[in-house]
């Protein structure tokens, strides 16, 4: 066909000198390149945040350890949390959304390509600003370098009195800058979904990936903005002498908690809903079945997003709120388990009776399913206020949310990496290395985070830099730390696989998985303009219709 010549056409950037190629990357407004920039950037920070976690775990490997000082330990947990949430998971998810959203809805780019580039560079410079604190935050006071107030930075730790120098300011401004980047990207995603769908793709015919990223973007708009507002208030307090969180002048430390968690809890769903999106694309393809309960999946997602706005104070049960407030937040938090459970059953029903192919992406998705279930169950335990009164700020909480973020979100994201790597690079990854990565990471994950629950139940608080021997925590902490090395080995295999496959992998072809969404209809990697001719779709699985003209989906939808 004539279009073949067009789709295999490569812009001849390959022959350009290195400086010109780098210049192309820095000045690009192409959603695919920005997507890759987002993903590479988040991988760099994943390594950095992982090193910080490893430092903490080495410090806690035995009682009375002296690997790092308490001050360094405080900086490590603050930087680890801030990095992983804002500069690893969010950019990674934005990267996938950027790359695949236009491809999946048959568009040639995002709605606002230049805003897209601007948002990426805001996020990128936000991360650099945060890490510049190691050099620049001493200020005139010689008072410590990196932020050490914890990732939720409760008042009054952030006041001038308790945080001399500029470490907290670096934290504030880096999150403000990257927050504006996130809002920009979210606006872009929403406008792309509403204004750039290809002909025939009604909202009800969009891939679930597009739906879930739309919901995520709405949550970003509504949740990251309050964080930006709170950061502005904190900056007013610290630079202009305001009293928002200054209890000495009648201000309130608790209102910072409210403002932070009004952002903080929807943020969890900002992170996990794109992970749902990955799973909702991968599970059907590797089960060789259409997704079960498409419309219920959409409804459950919207429902989760809606409820997630009214559960924030379950992070604050130990602060001491009134019984009525506690009751409300207990019930709303428990209610969110219902739509989440619906989603789990839908994925299971998609696999049920399917012809399951246990490739690496599918393995990670199955890992996601089980681990997300357990993460949800400990979540329901913690949603009961009396339970949290005992275990708030303990390692049980740490284990719970790492189960969500590592066990669910990171697993799904690894699945997405393997699933779409052929599309992004044009090369197949190495299946053996992929499976090795999966098993190493699975073993490491369970060694670390299963065993982390128990010291929490035994009363080990989070954020302590060392502990007394003989409390029954010693062996457990040793096992937890050993798991970290398995995870690190898994990550090394993963990076090695990406690099090796990029240079030496087999050619993937445009549709290695025999999948059904539009991104597989164009070449791998796609040309700059994505589609030579804008496609027209009639069902949720346009490529199924194309491959099976005798039995197309649109006859049944």
């Amino acid at each position, binding site marked *: 066909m004539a279009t073949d010549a067009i789709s295999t056409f490569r812009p001849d950037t390959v022959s350009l000198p290195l400086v010109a190629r780098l210049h192309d990357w820095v000045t690009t407004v192409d959603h695919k390149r920005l997507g890759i920039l987002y993903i590479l950037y988040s991988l760099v920070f994943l390594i950095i945040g992982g090193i910080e976690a490893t430092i903490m775990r080495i410090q806690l490997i035995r009682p009375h350890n002296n690997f790092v000082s308490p001050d360094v330990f405080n900086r490590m947990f603050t930087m680890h949390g801030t990095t992983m949430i804002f500069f690893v998971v969010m950019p990674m998810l934005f990267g996938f959304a950027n790359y695949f959203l236009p491809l999946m809805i048959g568009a040639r780019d995002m709605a606002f390509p230049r805003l897209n580039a601007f948002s990426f560079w805001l996020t990128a410079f936000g991360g650099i600003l945060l890490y510049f604190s190691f050099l620049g935050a001493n200020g005139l006071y010689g008072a410590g370098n990196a932020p050490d107030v914890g990732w939720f930075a409760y008042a009054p730790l952030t006041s001038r009195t308790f945080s001399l120098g500029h470490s907290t300011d670096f934290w504030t401004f880096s999150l403000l800058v990257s927050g504006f980047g996130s809002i920009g990207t979210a606006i872009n995603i929403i*406008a792309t979904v*509403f204004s750039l769908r290809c002909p025939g793709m009604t909202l009800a015919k969009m891939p679930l990936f597009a739906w879930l990223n739309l919901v995520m973007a709405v949550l970003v708009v509504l949740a990251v903005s*309050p964080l930006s507002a709170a950061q502005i208030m904190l900056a007013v307090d610290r630079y202009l002498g*305001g009293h928002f969180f200054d209890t000495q002048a009648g201000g309130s430390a608790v209102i910072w908690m409210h403002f932070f968690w009004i952002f903080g809890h929807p943020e969890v769903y900002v992170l996990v809903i794109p992970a749902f999106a990955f799973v909702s694309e991968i599970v059907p393809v590797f089960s060789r079945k259409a997704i079960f309960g498409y419309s219920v999946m959409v409804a459950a997602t919207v429902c989760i997003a809606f409820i997630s706005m009214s559960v924030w104070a379950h992070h604050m049960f130990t602060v001491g709120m009134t019984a009525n407030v506690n009751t409300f937040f207990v019930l709303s938090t428990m209610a969110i388990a219902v739509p989440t459970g619906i989603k789990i059953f839908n994925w299971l029903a998609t696999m049920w009776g399917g012809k399951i192919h246990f490739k690496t992406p599918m393995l990670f998705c199955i890992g996601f399913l089980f681990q997300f279930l357990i993460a949800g169950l400990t979540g329901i335990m913690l949603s009961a206020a009396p339970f949290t009164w005992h275990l708030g700020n303990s390692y049980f909480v740490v284990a719970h949310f790492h189960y969500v973020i590592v066990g669910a979100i990171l697993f799904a994201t690894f699945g997405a990496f393997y699933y779409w790597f052929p599309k992004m690079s044009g090369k197949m990854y190495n299946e053996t290395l992929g499976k090795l990565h999966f098993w190493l990471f699975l073993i490491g994950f369970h060694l670390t985070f299963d065993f982390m629950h128990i010291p929490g139940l035994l009363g080990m608080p989070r954020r302590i830099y060392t502990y007394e021997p003989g409390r029954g925590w010693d062996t457990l902490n040793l096992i937890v730390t050993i798991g970290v090395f398995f995870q690190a080995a898994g990550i090394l295999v993963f990076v090695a696989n990406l690099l090796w496959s990029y240079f030496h992998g087999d050619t993937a072809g445009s549709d290695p998985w025999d999948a059904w969404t539009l991104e597989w209809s164009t070449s791998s990697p796609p040309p700059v303009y994505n589609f030579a001719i804008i496609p027209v779709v009639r069902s949720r699985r346009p490529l199924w219709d194309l491959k099976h003209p005798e039995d197309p989906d649109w006859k049944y939808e």
Partner: protein
Amino acid sequence: MSTQPAVISDANITWELPSRGRVGMFCLISAESAIFTIFVVAYLFYVGKSLTGPMPKDVLHAPIFFTICLLSSSLTIHLAVKSLKRAKVGSFALWWFFTLALGATFLFGTAREWHHLIYDEGLTIQTNLFGTTYYSLVGLHAFHVTVGLLAITTVLLFALFGFVRQEHAERVDVLALYWHFVDAVWVVVFTVVYVIGR
């Protein structure tokens, strides 16, 4: 298996989607509303909690005239966009200039009020909780007015040099949406600061 990126289906359908500019601006307005909500909540939460004076009831006077200026600028910008849609560029420039003038008058009103509060009443952002929340909330709004005025000035300059034509009506309309939002927020800020908070 076919790999061509060609037409998936040749079904003939009519296809119309909302303009990306309007969708984008509505999203921006949602994000801005969330930011303002947090500042409004902080203001309301701290009403009457200042430990020292001056208190709002002693020093604040509702800026009725300047409020009328700002709110009527919503009308003038609407008339400007309407003129442009009908290709009346001259009338567009005139209404657009009125919008700029009314907005600038409002900003002058805020500046005058702040000057009075700082130099006559001794209320700064550091004085007490009222000062902190008042200057933050009103300042956040004034910042948005300033951004809007800069954008309006840019369009006015383009219009004066003859670059704004009928086909730009939709883009100008997006800016007008932002300006309506800034006006609507003032209604909330006015109610909170000068009615409830006093």
